[in-house]
């Protein structure tokens, strides 16, 4: 098993996503609010994981542009759930770094009426192991 295959295997296991279900309609990318900020778009995440092209994704800032709004998960006609792939990839990065950048205990200090709660949840998804 090559390194990419191993990583793919791990991503599929942690995310529970089966990219083979994708019919390449692009609705995830059509629906994504961060689309223009991203180097790789939701449908590309799915396709690149499927082909085992994981390393460019891990290195891309696109991972952190995803707002975890889950619109792509909600609207995907095939129940592929691209955002879960994004989360798994982020988790992989954090695990490779071996550090937990954000813990649940940190949240109460950050709660502020101005900050949407979803942002905190999203941050937790992005930066914690």
């Amino acid at each position, binding site marked *: 098993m090559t390194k990419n295959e191993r990583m793919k295997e791990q991503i599929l296991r942690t995310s529970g996503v089966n990219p083979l279900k994708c019919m390449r309609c692009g609705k995830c990318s059509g629906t994504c609010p961060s689309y223009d900020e991203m180097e790789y778009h939701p*449908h590309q995440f799915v396709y690149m994981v499927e082909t085992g092209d994981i390393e460019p994704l891990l290195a891309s800032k696109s991972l952190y542009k995803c707002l975890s709004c889950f619109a792509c998960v909600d609207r995907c006609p095939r129940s592929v759930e691209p955002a879960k792939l994004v989360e798994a990839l982020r988790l992989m990065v954090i695990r490779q770094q071996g550090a937990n950048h954000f813990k649940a205990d940190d949240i109460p200090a950050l709660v502020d009426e101005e900050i949407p709660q979803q942002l905190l949840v999203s941050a937790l998804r992005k930066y914690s192991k």
Partner: protein
Amino acid sequence: MQRIGVFVCWCGSNIAGTVDVEAVSEALKKEPGVVFSTNYQYMCSQAGQDIIKNAIAEHKLSGIVVCSCSPRMHETTFRKTAAAAGLNPYMVEIANIREQCSWVHKDKLTGTEKAIILGRTAIAKVNLNAPLTPGESPVTKRALVIGGGIAGIQTALDIADAGFEVDIVEKQPTIGGKMAQLDKTFPTLDCAACILTPKMVDVAQHEKIRIFSYSEVESVSGFVGNFTVNIKKKARYVKEDVCTGCGLCTEKCPQKNVPNEFNLGMDNRRAIYIPFAQAVPKVATIDPRYCTMLKTGKCGVCSKVCTAGAIDYKAKDEYIEEKYGAIVVATGYNPISMEKFDEFAYSQSKDVITSLEFERLTNAAGPTAGVLLRPSDHKHPKTIVFVQCVGSRCSGAEKGKEYCSKICCMYTAKHAMLTRDKYPDTDVYVFYIDVRTPGKAFDEFYRRAVEEYGVHYIKGMVGKVSPQGDKLMVQASDLLANKQLHIEADLVVLAAAIEPDASARPLATMLTASMDTNDFFTEAHPKLRPVESPTAGVFLSGTCQGPKDIPETVSQAGAAAAKVIGLLAKDKLTGNPCVAHSNELMCNGCSSCERVCPYGAITYEDKEFRMPDRTTRMRRVAKVNEAVCQGCGACTVACPSGAMDLKGFASAQIMAEVDAICK
């Protein structure tokens, strides 16, 4: 003791690949009753059948076991072979060593072992087989067609033209179905009404056809050749034979605000109405949900203006019972509800419409007299976005339908093309996942839309539609350009998936016809018997069986008609001899069997029995009507004494099979 011949088929390598056929035929030679055993490459071939015939003659076989493919495939074939060699066809048993052995097991030893057991089981059964002779039942030479759309119309016309009587039951006040609502038809672009309405008139005028419009099937009993159907003629409060269809009532009725279902609610009709100008039968119908007279007893305008005196506020539902030899299901389809697809803002904006609504907007008889105007402000839309596969090809039932609705690619191309043709200043975008155009002149048609009419086909899906002011902001992906598009549209048209009509499910239950998970009727064989239901005497026409376009529907309608004609042309049907049979000596007359019989095939009579002491005694015993019995066997288990048994599937036979398997 039987003299049994065993014939093991290789089915090329299909069986021989996983089963040692030589070993099987050798092993089965030793089974009780077996006097001959052989194997051959293709038992179903002429040469294979000749081996069987010769063996029957040469070894005076009284029963045969063919170890081959499923009995559902070739049982009939081998029964005919046996009959041709003078052996009763019901002395044939099949051991299914292909579908249920060689194809599901990989290891040859395992496969061979199992094949021997399956062969042994069939031998055990055939040892107890008895020759059977099928009974006969008469055929009622009249067909019922359920549904009066193009499928039902075509089937009815074809059957009637062959000289048989046909009744059409249509739940709407008029026949015509969905096709009557369409504007043009792809790929020739002829007007739907121009080709449909003459057929509707033909139906109305055909002396062999009766139309029960505004009617529904209430119950079905009986069996192939002998169905009894109860039809409910809903009260339309207008005497059908008196109404001239002048339409005066529909103009004078004061109740003006009834959503017009023919135009999908995009305009209004009156409480008394004729769905459209070419309706057949062209008679008015009062909608009791809206009629003031029916609701409050005050009004009566229609009755006053009707010079023919056709209005009858006291009308009641009528029930008609009729006998039929065959039933054709042609219940059609509906677009699915768009409620679950919030992202397309269907329920938020009037300017997000389905393709069927678009048909009405472009139809000369539609709410805008054929001028393409936005439903919200009646302005010409300048930018139109078509979204394909809405609710089709989804995973899981909660999202939509798993299947491809088949017709959307083509009608969307048609809509896009016609829009560009009539209004060249309009920008037309079509978002597609794949464009599927298998069909005669279909791809050419789609290419014309792109190349000649300049429709923008974009590979990608719309993610979101949000109404902003009088515009619709369409956010979509362009997969080939790897861009996200934001289009300011005036009209969004959704190619909604199609689903079987809701009436199909209860109808299937009444007909005991099977359905798939999507509520499409199942065909008897997906390839070889596509217009027959597995239930004998029930045939399928049109989209009730699966998504299809008009040409396919018409050809299936004709095929169903041909099957019906083939059935009705017979004077008698040979029945299934595998029917229940009661041993009078053991029968208690307890009525348990009668209670579980779904066909009412069991009756009782008092019969005189001679007792061992030479006295006679009257006893109540069960009698099976063999023409009515379908051979399910429910009675055999309900019978406490075991007097009831099933020919061909006798308790002793099944227990012999059990023993052979467990040996």
